[in-house]
């Protein structure tokens, strides 16, 4: 990838009915966006267990983007609201642990919003690029402190 610039690893966990399809649409419409994002699919964003997010960070994700249907549009009626609740608490946990909460982002992107997907992925990738590698976050510094010696 682009040299001498930090290229973050980004994990996308997208719901099958909206955001994953938006990504398909972006593809069909050839809307290019940074290749940093790796997309994993769940049926509903409500399936996203906060453990997945921590697991993602632990496995080297510098940023994680959760994508679900717009409020009221959930294919499963209100799975996305549960996602929202978990997300709001999870951000606080990250903050306390010493991980920049900006590294986790929740977006409502419907099946028709290819552009929005493109825009969000671009923004998010840039934002994370500016934040730098997650290993620089306090939590990981502490975690790896003994290893560094």
């Amino acid at each position, binding site marked *: 990838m682009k040299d001498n610039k930090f290229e973050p690893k980004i994990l996308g966990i997208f719901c099958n009915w909206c955001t994953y399809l938006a*990504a398909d649409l972006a593809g069909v419409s*050839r809307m290019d*966006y940074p*290749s940093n994002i*790796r997309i*994993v699919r769940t*049926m509903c964003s409500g399936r996203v267990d906060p453990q997945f997010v921590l697991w993602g960070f632990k496995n080297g994700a510098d940023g994680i983007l959760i994508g679900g249907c717009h409020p009221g549009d959930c294919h499963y009626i209100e799975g996305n609201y549960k996602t929202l609740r978990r997300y709001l608490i999870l951000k606080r946990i990250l903050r306390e642990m010493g991980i920049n909460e900006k590294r986790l982002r929740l977006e409502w992107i419907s099946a*028709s919003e290819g552009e929005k997907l493109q825009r969000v992925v671009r923004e998010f990738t840039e934002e994370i690029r500016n934040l730098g590698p997650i290993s620089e976050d306090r939590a990981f510094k502490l975690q790896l402190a003994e290893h560094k010696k």
Partner: protein
Amino acid sequence: MDKIKGNGEIRVGVYICHCGTNIAGRVNIKEVVEFASKLPYVVVSREYKYMCSDPGQELIKNDIKELKLNRIVVASCSPHLHEHTFRKACEDAGLNPFNFQMANIREHVSWVTKESKEATEKAKAMVRAAVYRVVFHESLERKSQEINPNVLVIGGGIAGISASLVVADSGKKVYLVEREPSIGGHMAKFDKTFPTLDCASCILTPKMTQVKDHPNIELFTYSEIEEVDGYVGNFKVKIRKRARYVDVEKCVGCYACIEACVYKEGKFPDEFNEGLSKRKPIYIPFPQAVPLAAVIDPATCIQFLSGKCKRSCQQACERGAIDFDMRDEIVEVQVGAIIVATGFKTFDPSRIPQYGYGRYQNVYKSIEIERLVNSSGPTGGEVILRDGRKPQSVGIIHCVGSRDKNYNIWCSRVCCMYSLKLAHLIKERTHAEVYCFYIDMRTPGKGYEEFYHKLMEEGVHFIRGKVAEVTDWAITPEEEGKLVIRVEDTLIGVVRRIPVDMVVLAVGLEPQPDADEIRRLLNISCSKEGWFLERHPKLAPVSTFTDGVFIAGACQGPKDIPDTVAQAEAAAAEALSLIDRKKIELEPNTAWIDEEKCSGCHICIGLCPYSAISYNEERKIAVINEALCKGCGVCVAACPSKAAQQRLFLDDQIYAEIEGALL
């Protein structure tokens, strides 16, 4: 990656698809194949031009047989496109289809990545994710479900009518639901249809009668969808039959009640005539209405307003069809498939104040002109201004509300053609000078361009330019008393002021204002403009992402009558082919409870949107009714003791996939 236990020997085959140049053009396939071959448990890693082609599938089948593969990964397009194709291939080769995982390296990689190097890296990651995941896959049984053979059609315009007839003719039961008192939709309002200029009612009316008489069609007019429950093959639909205060069965459409109404003549704007004429509180929408039955508008009927009416209408009706105590009624029907044909609405031109609609009485909407030129319309087909004068000059402004980012960005597709039609009819009826103001003439379609030429020969003036404003501000004496159309004529490059007697605004098409409610009821998606979204613009134009729900006509996007009918019959065919399968197999991605783990903490129970989870008092644990489970996994994510789990989306599978993806 985590050790896996008790899964026996794992043998993974990986297949990378070129998709012609779609993938190969961006992704270095060789490199990815090479990379995949080194991943854990991978026995073979191949590439092929088109994996979805027969030879491509054969490749997989043979390897399964010869190399004893028990896990398959195909890296190609979106699973929404071909997951089912490849699962089938596995099945044919005797491998349980759920030991398959797809990596989306086209929509999510080659098509959205500029740099080949980056694309290749990303493709590797996606493949690794799929391999890591598939290792944790296990054989699953599909549950299959009876399909209810009935079909629901929402919307009684030309689309709904055509679809209903096709389905009904095949011997299947159809429930046709129309919100207005009569079916027919917009088309019923037209006089002629372009380009052939054959009479709209002559071709529509017979179809409407067929619907009425068809033994397999149950018609619900003046009705709306209240609630849709269930899923493909087994929808439960609640229909609200709004009270029309006239019993359709008894009414013969003799107009006696209407004549008897205490209002001597019409007093309220007639919806069907776009308010160009007046109707009484009790009325029949139009002469060819189906059903041909009166309806009472409670908003204007004295009986409903004051309760003190002579009810002369009631007395006038020999068949006693009128019933003021009629109430809305909810009917529940069960269907296997749903066709949505809810149509469009026309753009409201008063949103563009500089065109003067609503301020200048001689500025009309095109749909109003449709009524004016219609022989059964308010003026019996005569084109006259509100003050009774015949216009000597008429300006038709195209693209009103269309192709304009201030209003609607899209082209409404029909305006150019219907403007031409109206130009022709107006000229024919009034011999007035007709000016068409257009941005571009768009006449794609059989005989359309020819029609355009015909009009030019007829001497209609075509001025290329977007109209700036319509004003009564007269500068010169000859402008006095007229409407002046200010426009830059881009062909001669000057700003022109053209005084006319009548201005026709060729308004565009918009999604129905309540399209969003329908969308939510049916769990389908809309494009951001609000048109219903098809599953695939080319390959699945009438399907939606919700199995068993199909779309037809202008609710999917602006289109003319020929296209609408074509699409409607296509939707009907899709619905029929679904129904004739008799059974459908459900994705086995349901959740279940591990009884050894569940502590009966009750957390999951309230979270299930389908009430599929309940508490078992004896065993003191939660249990999931898998027939009701739709597989969202919300309970799984919430379960504090990992007792709730979801097939095809086990924690371990997702952990592995995440780990793999973060290459």
